């Protein structure tokens, strides 16, 4: 069973990796409420892909399961999984709980 706190830490790690490549004033805050992608969010698609790649890889390493954060399931959610850190963590927990 996936632990939400572990998933949030995985997302933070991906954001830390991204922050290493950003200027100080553009670094992304590590918080459950941090908006990721969409209106008023902080990431552009280039940075979003960096987070997606790191999170998918880390989830696979941690749980031995491959997930896709940009497949049809993700793109047909009622609200975007990338709304903020919490919604992304909740989405991943749900994905890992299936099958």
């Amino acid at each position: 069973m996936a632990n939400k706190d572990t998933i949030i830490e995985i997302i933070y790690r991906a954001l830390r990796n991204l922050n290493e490549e950003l200027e100080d004033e553009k670094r992304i805050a590590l918080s459950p409420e941090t908006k990721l992608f969409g209106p008023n969010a902080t990431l552009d698609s280039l940075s979003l892909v960096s987070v997606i790649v790191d999170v998918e890889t880390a989830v696979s390493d941690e749980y031995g399961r491959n997930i896709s954060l940009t497949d049809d399931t993700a793109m047909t959610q009622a609200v975007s999984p990338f709304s903020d850190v919490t919604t992304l963590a909740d989405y991943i927990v749900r994905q890992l709980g299936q099958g």
Partner: protein
Amino acid sequence: MSKQLEKPTLVGQFINLRPLTADDAELTLLWRQGPRASLLNRGAQTAEDQRRWIVRRPANEYNFIIETKQHRPIGMLSLSGIDTVNCVAEPGRFLIGDEPASAGLPAAAEAMKLLYELAFDTLKLRRVWGFVASKNRRMIKWQTYLGMTQEGCLRQHLLIDDHPQDAVVFGLLDSEYRSVTLPRLKSLIAAARLPVAPST
């Protein structure tokens, strides 16, 4: 008149790719000298050099400004080295210069989608290729995620800030574009259309 002006504007849902003109010299120079361009090839050092570089672009190159639908320039992207004998070309000079204006927008994704449609659908190319500085991890992740295959390494091919740096060579075939790249680009663009959760 610049040969680039004869090129089409490629229209997307969130952004357009319009031809680069000499009037873009100062802005694109500013982007090129910004921190985000630190891992790109060394470019022009003055606005006049940049203007000269722009007007001298050959007719067989496509050099674009990425602009929002409100016509705000936010980046640049090119398709160069078009080889009509072997049907290959090199996408490159890819830079999001105005990051605040592109936050929350699938600007990079839609720009690449429009450029690849030009390459594979309009120009009927078989393959595109390019290289990325080995320390440009975000761009390496981007290219890999979008289906490009790492085909090799050009040792110390680049001189960035007076330090030699390897260049990672990437290639993408038409079939890979259709099976991997296009669906992923469409997903990234779709992600920007999804309703976001209300703030907690």
